[in-house]
């Protein structure tokens, strides 16, 4: 992804994994890109909204919830890997994410 350097990608990855580890009370090392958020971590939509709020705050991003929702209807985020792809695109494109073909 040309718009985000490797250091930022690593930082985002650490943030996302630690977020779900804290929220779901699991060890960060047990979370991989293939980990299913609902089936394995018992995550939910409220948790995703909390992560979105954190990402938007930490990276000074403005995005309409409706925009993100439309994107998620096209490309559902089921695994940690899906969330990372979404988050990288969110940090890179902000509100323009709805036009991004992941």
């Amino acid at each position, binding site marked *: 992804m040309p718009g985000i350097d490797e250091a930022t990608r690593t930082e985002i990855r650490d943030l996302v994994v630690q977020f779900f580890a804290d929220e779901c009370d699991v060890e960060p090392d047990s979370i991989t890109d293939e980990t299913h958020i609902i089936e394995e971590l018992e995550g939910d939509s*409220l948790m995703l909204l909390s992560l979105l*709020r954190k990402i938007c705050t930490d990276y000074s991003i403005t995005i309409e*919830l*409706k925009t993100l929702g439309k994107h998620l209807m096209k490309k559902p985020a089921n695994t940690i890997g899906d969330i990372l792809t979404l988050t990288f695109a969110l940090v890179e494109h902000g509100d323009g994410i709805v036009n991004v073909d992941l």
Partner: protein
Amino acid sequence: MSTWTCERDGHLLGCGVDAESIARFERPGGTAVEPWSLIFTEGEVAHTSTLDRPAVALCASFTVKEAVTKALGTAIDFRDCELLFSPGRDEQDVRLSTGLRDEHGIAGWTVRVTVDDGECVATALLFGRS
């Protein structure tokens, strides 16, 4: 099991149902990072703080927003759907913004919320014009 009947002019645009656990809304500030400003209007937050059990009202409101979203079959800005929760009532007065109504051709709606066994269940029926 409860039954629910309603009569409305206009065609049914959609029906959405959602259920959420009240406990999810009872942690101080919600989750690790509170997402409330993405979900609730200032009026909803102010209203829930006047109630004995704010978590029930927050849960009911979130459940209604999810039910309306499902009824429409597309994403919405949750703040375009506002519920000032009335405890003890099944049928709730929900406000849908003018923008949301115009965008989807919503002419009428009926929303029911039941609170039981630690969870809220919302059913939303949305109607278009005749």
